[in-house]
């Protein structure tokens, strides 16, 4: 009975804390701005089929049409509707961003808690992470992307691998601090296994910085995917990736500026939204990094 009461009050405290975090987020200006931008983009991406136009349908007679009431963002060198292509591009970019953030978050978190918990693994894992960080992230992603072939999933793997070391280091740093706290010692004394300590205690306590980092990885991934597509190592044409549209529109940029203009705005807006979201999350979830007074 007494135990049940303690448990219940523990849950109540946790629930209240969650509620407080949520309320803080709702009152955080940059978090809300980012949230609205990202939400609008997600809805726009999901609504792409509603334009009723095939993003890859070529209509030669409608080539290079400037923005108008019919083609809001104009048409490209094949007469494809750029508004539709930009919306489908949002699907592709947001999917890649999400997949990279989740993949690098999960693997990075696992590596981070493993090296914090098992000190023998630590130096090996961290040297591997250092090696992955030896070259600039975008360069590593270019190399990996090229090695895996020009496909959407190779872009995802390449970018995830490039960002795993940073996430792993952040989770490790947080877990190393948690590890020294008394309640971990108590858990160990009461017979908790390493697994339980890692996933019940170390990981949840690192979830704030992990979530913040993953949000920023999402923003980086959107920018990096566009850059990879632009270089020619992204999802292959005619995939309506934002980077592809800009790369294709570039040679016509002097006469038909609109081809490359709108996808660029879309990339900027998506990255801006995720960065604002990340700033807000960091202020609320990671008080050590809090910069607002």
């Amino acid at each position, binding site marked *: 009975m007494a135990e049940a009461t303690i448990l219940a009050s523990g849950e109540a405290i946790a629930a209240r804390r969650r509620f407080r975090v949520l309320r803080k987020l709702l009152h955080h200006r940059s978090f809300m701005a980012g949230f609205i931008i990202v939400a609008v983009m997600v809805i726009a991406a999901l609504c792409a089929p509603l334009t009723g136009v095939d993003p890859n349908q070529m209509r030669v007679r409608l080539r290079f049409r400037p923005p108008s009431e019919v083609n809001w963002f104009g048409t490209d060198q094949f007469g494809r509707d750029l508004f539709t292509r930009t919306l489908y591009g949002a699907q592709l970019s947001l999917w890649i961003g999400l997949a990279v953030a989740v993949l690098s978050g999960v693997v990075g978190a696992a590596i981070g808690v493993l090296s914090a918990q098992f000190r023998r693994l630590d130096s090996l894992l961290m*040297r*591997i992470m*250092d*090696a*992955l*960080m*030896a*070259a*600039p*992230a*975008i*360069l590593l992603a*270019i*190399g*990996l992307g*090229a*090695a*895996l*072939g020009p496909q959407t999933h190779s872009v995802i793997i390449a970018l995830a691998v490039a960002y795993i070391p940073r996430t792993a280091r952040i989770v490790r740093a947080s877990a190393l601090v948690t590890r020294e706290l008394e309640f971990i010692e108590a858990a160990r004394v009461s017979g908790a296994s390493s697994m339980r300590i890692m996933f019940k205690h170390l990981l949840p306590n690192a979830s704030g910085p992990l979530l913040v980092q993953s949000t920023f990885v999402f*923003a980086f991934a959107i*920018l990096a995917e*566009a*850059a990879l597509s*632009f*270089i*020619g*190592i992204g999802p292959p044409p005619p995939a309506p990736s934002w980077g592809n549209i*800009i790369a294709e529109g*570039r040679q016509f*940029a*002097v006469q038909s*500026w609109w081809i*490359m*203009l709108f*996808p*660029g705005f879309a*990339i*900027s807006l998506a*990255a*801006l939204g995720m*960065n*604002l979201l990340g*700033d807000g999350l960091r202020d609320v979830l990671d008080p050590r*990094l809090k*910069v*607002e*007074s």
Partner: protein
Amino acid sequence: MFRGIMMRLSQAVPVLLIFSVMVFMLMHLLPGDPALAIAGPDASPEAVQKIREQLGLDRPLIVQLLEWFSHLAVGNFGESLTLKQSVISAVGERLPVTLSLSFVSLVVTLPIGIGLGVVAAYWRNSWIDAWVMVLALLGVSLPGFWVGILSVLYFSVQLGWFPPSGYVPLTEGGVGPWLASLIQPAVVLALFQIGFLARITRSAMLDVLDQDFIRTARAKGVDEWTTISKHAFRNTLIPVVTVLGITLSLLVGGSVVIEQVFALPGIGRLIVQGILNRDYPLVQGTMLLFGFAFVVINILVDIIYTIVDPRVRYG
């Protein structure tokens, strides 16, 4: 301090070993047969096989890896398949371009990025702070290659202020044409770094401004300028120096993409062309040189760190 440096160096050895193995494996994953790429589409299977043997591609991976290591040990980074020159000389030819671009970009970045961060922190929560933060946020959100194309359209095509592409070596035209060919890509490249650095500097400066010793300095009547420039700014530099390695890494990474936009014959272009031509000794060697360079840079950053922060030296 000497011991510290030696320890960092000894840590760098396994990192470089792991990195070399990774780069090697990476390039052997590349789809497509380099022998086929060299022989061309019309070559007979026998000819392709002969080239494969010449390159040693028919031997077991582990033998190729060990051979590669033995070449690396004597400073041989391999021969390019398509350029008919060694990787070292190919990189050497293009290094000045990438270094010049990074240098000019860094010269633009450091004062503006750090300056904006300090100004924003000093006038925190004012309209100046708000504007600086919006600009910094835009800096880290705009895709550099897109801004680069727009910049060419406006400043080169429309106004004709700068050449739209290409590079003029310092030795050929002197400082003027050299700078003119670099200033546009360098500024575009700097936008991201400025945003990144301004955000870091601001939060570091805010931390310092809240410290007791700042209040003490003000209380004992130190004038505001000295308080900020001597007491606050110097301590702000410590976290800023830690991200210097990251800044350089971002800078060089960004230049790989920017070099494509402005057709600058630098290392980024070399790597991308190498990948597209399946010239894997070239990509392998270049990536490896990059890795080596960054391991050295990070050690240098650590050394600068001990100079800026005496606590590290004695601790």
